[in-house]
């Protein structure tokens, strides 16, 4: 089960990447190769196996609702590629996410 060029293009939008025609070609073949290798897992019987999302069995790590110190605004905005005195600036947002 390889991946098609169209799928790769769709995924590139979902992941907000922009692949040129050459890159797209190469990505399609490399992803296909890698995903094929992943199918090695299909031979493993995972019936009744609990997924393991964390390496540790920790639970209930909570903190108190005590206010701390926020950054001064100029520090918060210091790394912004584009800003005004108060806000981060981005190209006009259209519609909902």
């Amino acid at each position, binding site marked *: 089960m390889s991946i098609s060029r169209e799928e790769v293009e769709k995924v590139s939008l979902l992941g*907000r990447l922009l692949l040129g025609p050459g890159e797209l070609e190469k990505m399609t073949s*490399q992803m296909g190769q890698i995903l094929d290798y992943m199918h090695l*897992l*299909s031979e*493993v019987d995972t019936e009744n196996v609990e997924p393991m999302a964390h390496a540790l069995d920790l639970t209930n790590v909570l903190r108190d609702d005590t206010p701390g110190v926020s950054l001064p605004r100029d520090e918060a905005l210091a790394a912004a590629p584009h800003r005004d005195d108060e806000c981060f600036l981005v190209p006009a947002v259209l519609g909902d996410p």
Partner: protein
Amino acid sequence: MSLIESTATELLGQLQSGRTTAVEIAAACLKQIDRHDAKIKAFLRVDRDGALARAAEIDARRKAGKPVGRLGGLPVAVKDLLCTKGQRTTCGSRMLENFRPPYDATVIAKLRAADAVLIGRTNMDEFAMGGSNENSAFGLTHNPWDLTRIPGGSSGGAAASLAASMVPLSVGSDTGGSVRQPAGFCGVLGMKPTYGRVSRYGLVAFASSLDQIGPLGRSAEDIALLLEVIAGGDPLDSTSVDRPVPKYTESIARPLENLRIGLVREHFGEGLDAEVEAAVREATRVYQSLGATVSELSMPHGKYAVATYYIIAPCEASSNLARYDGAHYGHRTDEKAMAVELAAQRKALQQTGDSRKLEALDNPLIRMYRRTRAEGFGAEVKRRIMIGTYALSAGYYDAYYLKALKVRRLIRQDYDRAFEQVDLIAGPVAPTPAFEIGEKVDDPLAMYLLDLYTASANLAGIAGMSIPCGLSTGGLPIGLQLQAPPFEEERLLRAAHMFQQATDWHTRRPELS
């Protein structure tokens, strides 16, 4: 022995007894960097003035009889992905080329508090993705043993800086072998502690459930020293574990009695270089000579580690790296050029009358994201974002991500069973010694397969360590990997120390021209 050739533990003794000063050590390290780093390129940036000033300050304090921290003025190199307040933290990426975090990582804070002299930032594969340092946006790092070869990765700069005697201690991070593998390729020691042993706060995330900061050094004692400083629970990291940090440096000289070492049958199959196998087997004989028993055992799911790892890690990475979109910090594409590009594309589509494509044309915000990320990320990072995005997307989640999480559990269970029979698992770090630069750049899968022996420890969350155990006929270092149950770093360190009392592989250094 010269300052640069000494271990951190030896240097600390000299500092404490007044035979040398932090400034002398820092100066010696800086001199070595000056002499050799133009060729090796272990460092992205060296903080010459900052290091010397800090060293002088610590010396003054020591001279005045005031308290000095645990690292007492020793230089430490830091992989360029630990956030350091006000200083560039690039992660080897164009995306963060000029990024200066407004805060310190917990490990950085601990190093400062222990009076480490932060001498510079080491090169790495971009966002810690890679095993050769060829994925750094800022150029290759060369293996000090053979400049035509890679140093390993992703903490390649960290390992190379030690092998080239530029620093006595280095901090790296290990997500699938990124400390252990370059340590093995460069003939130094490196540890991946148990997941949760060291705070990840301020470590720029690659794959959050696998990432762990680890120490690199030239002796087991040095690793013990550095681990003692950086380990411990942290209220800023929910996944760190609040349990006491043993005094690794105190127990390290005590040999392990009745040590049971396991060799994983599946590790010694196809693909393992004969010289590597011989060196690892020889190392187990050393342990036998020290009274350990060595037995074979099976970890049937080990062969799935690479596939499992290369699903889970990219999935987490695709999400962790979503924040690099040019909106709040980091690189942003040239918006004027972008507007021109979009207008041209719109015009072209209007002319062809393809209304479907016209409709689907990115709006300026989405195009800003896409161009920013296309420019800011290198090929390997893009590949992993693509794989992770795909594997998490609707219709594929169960087949890839969920399946991988289940196999991950089986891998962990293999370990649990193994550690009922043995105290430590010994084996190779990587299938071969360091390979040539460029050898695998166009074969990502071949590169991934290098993680066969290291990725499982991250998946299982256990502790692992790489120790020099031989040299190939070509004069390249070979690493022995020891793995221990969770929070048994002390056992690893004692075992490594035993080995180093009986062998001298860890003292071998490359000839630097």
